[in-house]
Every structure is written in structure tokens, then in C-alpha cells.
């Protein structure tokens, strides 16, 4: 055995020397195509955005350099044009993220597990939950605005039949948030469900069987086999869902128009208004807001990453 091992080791060394030389160039060949398009279509625009954030620009005249003025106006300067609205939008966005991300993780996870049990009609179920994602935001908004119509909509029609008063789903708080969250879950749950399904495929069956043999019940199998097995997928889903929720735009833009008043205006809506909206757009301030948002999101992601890694260590 020892002799064999030595010979095998010698053979290994030779092979790895060959692969080592190959590995020098090959990785770069693998990442090159992406980096090519990345630098042209992502890096340049991002640098352009950073450049703009230090200027004020109305799209037609020359950009005016203002240094950190935009950032100061947005973050600190109570008297500026933008301070109050920016922080309002920021708060609204964080609220939406807090309200929408947990259900957008838990519900798809439970659905994926349920579908994965291969119960009767699970193909149909999968299709039903995924189909809403096929619709464009315009359609989703239109159908929900109409269903949630205070006076002529489907939902209040049935609520009236049950004896209750009309609920102002889109014009008053807290209903506006409820509507936005429900609408978003209906629309995007399918994505996360598919991702979890794909992740569940990668958990080897024998781990479940071993756990069963050890006497673990369903809950224990979930926490000790499923969740750890989904770690990678979960990380991806949490980050992407958080980013998506931070970027909430279409639903409030169309369904509540940011109302009542400005209570459902999100960051991206406000950025859009300042960057492209009527009146006097300022591409520089809009860019600065986008960058602030990006920095904040990165911090949130780092925190999420750290939390999930720590959980990982405690499981092992």
C-alpha cells in the first residue's frame, strides 16, 4: 500500500506540474469574455455615473462641477431641495425591504419543499406559481390596480359580500403597503421557488435517509439536512431578493403613484423623478443618489454575508 501510494504521489506531482503551467493562462481565458463586455458596458457606465455624481447636469447644457455638494445636500443639508424627500424615500424603501424580504424567502422555500415531495399535480403547481413572473410589470400593475379598486374591484366586491366596508387598498396606509407587498410576492415568488428547487436537487438523497435512520423527524431533517444543504442557494436568494426589493419601482409608480402624498415613494422612484422627471431634471443629483444607494446596499449585503457565515460555523 505504501509503495503504491508513493508511486501514485510521484505520478500526481508530475501531473500537477503540467496542470500548474496550464492553469496559469487558462483561468484568464475563462474570465476574459465576460470581462471584455463587463468593462465596456458596465465599468464605463459606472464610472460615468460616479463622474456625474460630482456634477450637476440638466442633460442639455454643460455639466457643472460641484464636488461633494450633491452628497451633502442629500445626506446632511436639512435645507436643501432634496434632503426631506430623499430621506422619506429612503425610509419607505427600507420599510418595504423589511416587509417583503422575509415572506419572499419563506414562502418560496416552503412551496419548493412541498413541490419537491412530488405530490399529486406538482408539475401543475410549479407552473401556477411561476407563471406570474412571465408578465411584465405593466400587466401586473394593471390587473392588481383593477382588482384592488376601492369601489369597483374584485377584492372589495367579495369583502362587501362578507359584510365589511370598502378597504382603500391603494390610497391609504397601511393598506397601500399591504397591497404592494402582496402584489410583489404574487409576481416574483416563482423566481425564488425555482432557485430553491434547483438547490434542493443538489442535496444528496442519502443524507435524508441517514437522518431518518437516526430517528430524525421532519422538522429535524429540515433544520439539519435541508437548510445546511441549501446554504449556497439561500445566500444567493437572500442577496438577490434584498437587492430587488431595494430597487422597488414599477409597483408603487403605477399602482399608488407614491401616494398617499409621498408615503409610498421609493428611492428608485425618487431617483427617476430627479433624473428624468418633469421640470428641472438633474442627472448629477440622481447619480449621487444611486451611488449612495449602492454603498448602502453593499453594507447590507456584507452584514448578511457575515451573519450567514457565522450561522454556518455554528452548524459545523
Amino acid at each position, binding site marked *: 500500500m505504501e509503495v503504491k501510494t508513493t508511486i501514485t504521489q510521484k505520478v500526481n506531482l508530475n501531473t500537477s506540474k503540467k496542470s500548474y503551467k496550464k492553469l496559469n493562462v487558462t483561468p484568464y481565458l475563462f474570465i476574459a469574455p465576460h470581462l471584455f463586455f463587463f468593462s465596456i458596458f458596465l465599468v464605463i457606465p459606472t464610472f460615468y455615473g460616479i463622474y456625474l455624481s460630482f456634477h450637476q447636469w440638466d442633460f442639455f447644457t454643460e455639466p457643472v462641477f460641484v464636488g461633494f455638494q450633491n452628497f451633502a445636500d442629500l445626506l446632511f443639508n436639512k435645507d436643501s431641495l432634496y434632503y426631506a424627500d430623499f430621506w422619506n424615500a429612503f425610509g419607505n424603501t427600507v420599510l418595504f425591504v423589511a416587509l417583503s424580504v422575509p415572506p419572499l424567502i419563506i414562502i418560496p422555500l416552503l412551496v419548493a419543499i412541498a413541490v419537491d415531495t412530488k405530490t399529486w399535480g406538482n408539475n401543475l403547481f410549479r407552473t401556477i406559481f411561476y407563471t406570474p413572473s412571465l408578465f411584465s410589470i405593466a400587466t401586473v400593475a394593471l390587473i392588481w390596480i383593477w382588482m384592488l379598486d*376601492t369601489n369597483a374591484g374584485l377584492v372589495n366586491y367579495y369583502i362587501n359580500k362578507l359584510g365589511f366596508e370598502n378597504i*382603500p387598498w391603494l*390610497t391609504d396606509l397601511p393598506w397601500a403597503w399591504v397591497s404592494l407587498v402582496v402584489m410583489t410576492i404574487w409576481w416574483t415568488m416563482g423566481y425564488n421557488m425555482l432557485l430553491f428547487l434547483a438547490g434542493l436537487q443538489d442535496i444528496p438523497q442519502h443524507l435524508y435517509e441517514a437522518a431518518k435512520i437516526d430517528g430524525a423527524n421532519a422538522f429535524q431533517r429540515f433544520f439539519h439536512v435541508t437548510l445546511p444543504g441549501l446554504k449556497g442557494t439561500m445566500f444567493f436568494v437572500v442577496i438577490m431578493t434584498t437587492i430587488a426589493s431595494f430597487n422597488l419601482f414599477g409597483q408603487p409608480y403605477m*399602482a399608488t*403613484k407614491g401616494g398617499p402624498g409621498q408615503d409610498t415613494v421609493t428611492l428608485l422612484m425618487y431617483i427617476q423623478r430627479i433624473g428624468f422627471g418633469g*421640470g428641472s431634471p438633474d442627472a448629477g443629483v440622481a447619480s449621487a443618489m444611486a451611488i449612495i444607494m449602492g454603498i448602502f446596499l453593499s453594507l447590507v449585503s456584507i452584514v448578511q454575508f457575515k451573519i450567514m457565515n457565522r450561522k454556518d460555523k455554528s452548524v459545523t
Partner: protein
Amino acid sequence: MKIPKMGLLLLLSFMLVLAGCSSKQTDQNAEGSSEIVLEFWNGFTGPDGADMKKIVDQFNEENKGKIHVKTQTMPWANYYDKFRTVVSQGKAPDVSIMHLDQIPSYASTGSLTELDELAAELDLKEEDFISQVWKAGIWEGKRYGIPLDVHPIALYYNKDLLKEAGYDAPPKTYEELVEMSKALTKGDQYGIAMPTLWPSQLIYFSSLYQHGGESVSPDGLKALYNSSEGVEALKKLVDLIHKYEVSPKNIQQDGEVTLFRQGKSAFHINGIWMINGFKEQKDLNFGTAPIPLFGDKPATWAGSHNFVLPKQKNPDPEKQKAAMKFIKYVIDNSIQWAKAGQIPAKNSVRESEEFKELEHQANIAEQVPYLVFPPASPTYIEVWVPAEEGVNLALLAKKTPEQALKDAASKGEKQAKEKAKK
């Protein structure tokens, strides 16, 4: 698994050929002719666009070989996005439609061509047009827009519901509106459906001027709507919902349109552009009339589509002349455009027999002598828009009219001051 892949490849190559072929064709048309090709942008999507297209096609027929107009249509919601992106990169269209209230801010950034001389060359003058809207195309003493139409708001009413309640004419004053609405509000039917978002701002604007109030000072810096007239004007709208209860509460975006189409509201105040949509509702027997008098003197909000010539990097006088010729043609033939639910700005077209036959348009055009437009100032929008938010909050009973307008005024003036500093 392999067979679908092959099928996919075949489909792909087929598409490639299709896509390649058609793009080549359009190129060939543009080359090799001394024809002037004009890029024309507008936001007339859907059925209205069809009417404009007829006029453009006619023009192209009559000017074959000399001028050809290529139209690009996109939803208004994204129109200005594309305008800003593309024009800021130097690829402006040759002629485009712009809303009247947008002209001052684009003119102030130098992105529009001055039209005084070009208009004079074609003998376009004030006497031929509705004078308020002709005058409104001027900013800082120079002309930037040529008006195509005016589109005011109007009172729509359900003839059947009115008849049922014993009325055969729509209300002319606020008192009549309230009285009739009370009679028409029963069960799940309402006298009127008062929107809390669009177009409540337009109704408020009209009510404001009807009470003798004003929106914004001509220099675009002071808010004039939080006067006692302004508060009274807003109160009249709010009372319909909360005091007289002739309108349902909490109507969300477009809810008021749905209610009118369903026959659940007798009155509806909205723009002239709704005509064709309501006509499609076959079981809706509706009439049109000037909006009721909320205040003492008649005044009605109107918007206007204007032709503008965006500034080019290298202006081509030949193209500009061709563009003006096109503009004049459309205006002269705007009876076709009136069919889309618009009122032509050119007097001769509006006073023609053909126009008078368009029942609804003619009814609504009775308001022409007293249309009100926002004052031309780049900071108008800064000062006015908070008022729209205030109107929304007051209609939702989240603020009193006084408080709503007061808060809006201070926010608006602050915004204008900041912007003027830049």
C-alpha cells in the same frame, strides 16, 4: 434533447435571415435620393395615433420625392426619457410634439430652435390661432412652439341616469352639481366620482381660476394658490366627497373612469381625450358639456400639443424649412386630428362645418374663450407640483385644504428658490 437543439438552431438561422433582410431594406430606401427625410416624434399611441398617421401619410403622398416624414411613436410616459437621453447625445429628431407646459424648461436649456422667423416665412400669425395658446408658445420674448391643438377638461354625464332622475340637462353651477348629484346618489351609484390623483390637479386648477385665484406668479417664484380663493376652490372639491358625500372616498388611479364606464357615476370630469374611450363603451349613453362653475367666473384648464424643432448640432436650413412646411400642413389639415378627440388650435379649422359636426368636440370647444394655461416659467413646475400633492392629501381627508395648500406653498417656493440659484 438533441432534436430540440437542432430545431432551435434552425429557428435561429431563420430569424437571422429575416432580421438581416428587413434591416437592409430600410437602409436602401434612405440612400440615393435627394428627398429630405424628417424624423418626427410624438407620443400618440393607440387609436389617436391612427388619426395623426393619416395626416402624415397624406403629406408624404403629396410630397413624394421631395419630403418624407418618418414617424416615431412611443408612450408619453417614456417620451421625455427618450427625448432627454437621445437629444443630450446629439441625435435629436427634426420635429417633435411637446406639451405646452414643458416648453419653458426645454427652451431655457437651449434645446429648442427659435421659430419667429420661420413662422413668419409661412405666414403663421396670432389671428389664425386661439390667442391664449399662440401667446403661450413664447418664452423670454422668443417663440418656440407652434400650437396644434388644445385639450381642455370637460364634464361628461350619463344621459340615462340623468333622465331616470328627471333631468335633461347637465349642471352649469356648483350648486346645481351638488343638487343633482344628491338625487343621483343611491345604492352603489354615485352622483360624481372625484379622483384623488390624476386628473384632480386639472379640476383644482380650473376651480382655482374660477374663484379668481392664480397658480404661480409670472416670475415663477411665488405660490399664489394658498390664497383664500385657493382654499375655497379646493374645499368645493373636498366637500363633494366628505360633506355632501356624493362621491365615493379613496378612489385610486383611474377608478373614476371605471365607475363612469360601469354606469355607476352620473358625472365625470376629465379631459377631452377620453371621448373615444367612452364611445367604445357601447352601453354608455354619455353627453359632454363645459365643466360646471365652481367659482364666479368661467375658467377651464387646457393643455396643448405644440410642434417644436429641437436644436441640432448642425442646423440644416433646408430641413428646417421642410419641417415647417410639414407643421403647417398638419395644422391646416387638423380636422382629422380633431376626430381623435382634440380641438384644433387653428381658428379656421375649428370654425368649420366639419368640426361642428363632431358633437362632443364642439360641445367642449365652447370653453375656448376662457381656457387657462399655466404661466410660462422654468420654475413653474417646482412651485406648482407640491400643490398637486396637497390636493391629493386634502381629497383623502388627510389634511385640511388650508393646511395642505400652506405646506405645499412653502415647499414649492423653497424648491423654486433653490433652482433659481443654480
